């Protein structure tokens, strides 16, 4: 991965410096300085500008769609049986963000979701807890209350609360509203914020704007004690459409400080696909090769069966390595996946298939 030469010394410190001041070529935006996000400064140099960001993203190696899909399909043919399958099923549960994102969500629905998160299978208490529950921002207090003492870090066997924010799912609101949305969820006790990028800005080539918004939302994740809620950046890959776009957006989200890159809101089809997730994992792997830092990946939407989820585990393990299979580096955003995993799990322990009435509705 080459990093482009630092842009000429036209960058000034003021973000408001005139866009017409530099003799820019027609296709390259003027050297408007961007917020000095730590990772971006390290990667692109001190004078971080719209231009240097754009040159960097456009300099990324292309993606061959046929080859990428072929590789994903190949990983999908791994045959995970017996002990490996048992391990995989439990691991999938531990990596789930159990989600409800409906207009009809109520405190009762959220309490029910939390109960399911804490005790996925009442008939088999050895089933692990999920990593987090994922709700709209205004439901965060209900989720926090329902979790009570079980609220906390999944590494400690507790369950986190993730909130979607920034005018989810469309992201069509002013930055001021997005930041208020985020700060509100964090102050209510959300441990994780799932934000959406401005796809309109991205598709029209305003990479700097997308970047600045992520940086600002990241700042809005800051709590009073100086710690930060973990930030998941939703790319909405179904709207970005091309793999080249997905690679650029992934790279951009990481540069801007995202802790996770996430495929989709679940409200746009196609949502998560194996090739898209593989591509995002490759970006995360490349980032790790360059910096030693680990960034998480969250495919969300459309993963409904154990069989599918196992393909994702295989893809993670064979692309970035097995140490990514932990809640701080990989999540499934899903609502119906959990019950299918529980059914498979029951089959594995009892040797018999049971039916949908033997797993609980949340």
């Amino acid at each position, binding site marked *: *991965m080459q990093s482009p030469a630092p842009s000429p010394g036209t960058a000034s410190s003021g973000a408001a410096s005139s866009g017409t001041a530099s003799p820019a070529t027609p296709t390259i935006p003027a050297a408007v300085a961007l917020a000095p996000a730590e990772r971006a400064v390290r990667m692109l140099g001190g004078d971080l500008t719209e231009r240097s960001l754009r040159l960097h993203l456009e300099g990324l190696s292309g*993606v*061959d769609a046929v080859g990428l899909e072929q*590789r994903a399909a190949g990983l999908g*043919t791994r045959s995970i049986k*017996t002990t490996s399958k048992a391990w995989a099923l439990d691991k999938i549960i531990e990596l789930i963000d159990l989600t409800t994102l409906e207009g009809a969500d109520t405190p009762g629905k959220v309490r029910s979701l939390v109960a399911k998160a804490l005790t996925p299978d009442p008939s088999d208490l050895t089933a692990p807890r999920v990593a987090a529950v994922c709700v709209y921002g205004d439901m965060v207090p209900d989720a926090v209350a329902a979790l009570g003492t079980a609220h906390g870090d999944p590494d400690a066997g507790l369950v986190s609360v993730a909130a979607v924010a920034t005018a989810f799912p469309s992201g069509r609101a002013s930055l001021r509203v997005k930041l208020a949305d985020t700060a509100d969820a964090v102050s209510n006790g959300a441990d994780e914020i799932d934000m959406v990028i401005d796809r309109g800005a991205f598709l029209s080539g305003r990479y700097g704007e997308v970047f600045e918004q992520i940086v600002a939302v990241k700042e809005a994740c800051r709590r009073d004690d100086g710690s930060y809620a973990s930030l998941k950046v939703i790319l909405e890959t179904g709207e970005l459409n091309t793999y080249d776009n997905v690679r650029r957006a992934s790279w951009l989200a990481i540069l801007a400080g995202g802790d996770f890159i996430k495929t989709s809101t679940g409200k746009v089809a196609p949502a998560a696909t194996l090739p898209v997730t593989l591509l995002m994992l490759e970006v995360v792997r490349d980032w*790790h090769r360059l910096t030693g830092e680990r960034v998480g990946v969250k495919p969300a939407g459309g993963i409904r069966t154990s069989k599918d989820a196992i393909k994702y585990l295989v893809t993670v393990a064979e692309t970035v390595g097995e140490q990514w299979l932990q809640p701080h580096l990989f999540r499934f955003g899903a609502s119906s996946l959990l019950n299918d995993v529980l059914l498979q799990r029951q089959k594995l322990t009892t040797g018999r298939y049971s039916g949908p009435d033997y797993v609980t509705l949340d």
Partner: protein
Amino acid sequence: MAKDLITAGAGSFLDYAPAPESTSILHLQKSYGLFIDGAFVTGHGRPFASISPATEKHIAEIATATPKDVDTAVAAARRAYDKTWSKLSGADRGKYLFRIARLVQERARELAVAESLDNGKPIKESRDVDVPLVAAWFFYYAGWADKLDHAGLGANPQALGVAAQVIPWNFPLLMLAWKIAPALAAGNTVVLKPAETTSLTALLFAEIVQQAELPNGVVNIVTGAGETGAALVRHPDVNKVAFTGSTAVGREIAKAVAGTGKKVTLELGGKAANIVFDDAPIDQAVEGIVNGIFFNQGHVCCAGSRLLVQESVHDDVVDRLKTRLATLRLGDPLDKNTDIGAINSREQLDRIRELSDIGEAEGAERWTAPCVIPENGFWFAPTIFDNVSTSSRIAREEIFGPVLSVLTFRTPAEAIAKANNTPYGLSAGIWSDKGSKILAVADKLRAGVIWANTFNRFDPASPFGGYKESGYGREGGRQGLAAYLQPAGSAKVRTSAYSQPRKTPRNVLSAGDAS
């Protein structure tokens, strides 16, 4: 550096639990005879054992065809040609081929298991590549059988007669399909000799021929070693010789048939260049390199055994390649998660070892993927040689194993020059995100098959064949069909024993080169 990122430690998920494909579907006989005139008959030679290269365990006893047996088989094929097959309409021949194709699909799992057992290739390849392509080949040529007027030889082209076909051990059943499907579609009858280490699926195919109720003698299968093959291609009553295998044997065959009037197609060795430009989609290129040389343990005549990588991205590509190779699983060919199976024979393993040692002695940097080698059987871990010079033997000779030689280039012109600097010319690969560059480079490469941003993809509609020492003639597509036809009104080709050789033998070496 992500070198240690993907390692399977004790008790790790990446040590996938065994997932063996069951062999219970396979009902093998203890011994197999020759398949002549629609029935299995005893061979007059000394029978030999077919073993599993992964375990060295005995699978079945295979008959050896003597020259006399070959004569019987050719006579049966001649009778079938004269009496039935040449009299059938194309549509009727097509029906038989469609029937064979469907039977291959019905028995796909059985054929895949047999192939992996006998050849040593991973079940995922025999299941997902070999056998589906076998069915595809029969379906494709079944469709041609009643459309020969469009084969490019004018109206009403004629079959040649009896085809003698000798195939290699790397894709036993697929090579059989490449040979038999177009031959039968064009109206020829065949006598085919499989490689001695991999006769099993050809004999199962003989059962399919019986099941399809193909007229007796249209397909005959004679097993045995080199002498059987020599007797077959030298037989005076065959009209066409088709061979896939080594350049050395191909040369012998060319000499043997020179001046006899037999039509010949030869598909021989290769030393393909896989060219990676600095603007390549890098992760997909790495996959393509892996697929190019480690598919089927590198036992592929069109394998991308020479990696030509642009110097500016050399380190990155090689580093990524090594990380990727560390994830390959070598072992039981019947395990569904196996990526690298067994080397087909001890003889081949010895050759791979010998050439690799030479590579090391000649100064190339050897790197071997970390993997555990099973105790029994024939195995060779995926190996890369870096800093290989163009004059090194591992850059010039076909190794036919999981060994990649890495060379660098600076400009497209240099890449083209180095890619063409080989006695072979079967295939090549180009990796670049820039379409115009791909087309410009492909235009100058002297290779029969050129893949762009992919490698080792096969399709029955696409002609396949080589330049120079990679052989002549094309298999697949319309061209592959024409190789078994002659224009209407051609003098009936009756070979030496039955007629005089042509006065001016065709210069076969140059004849097939143009395409």
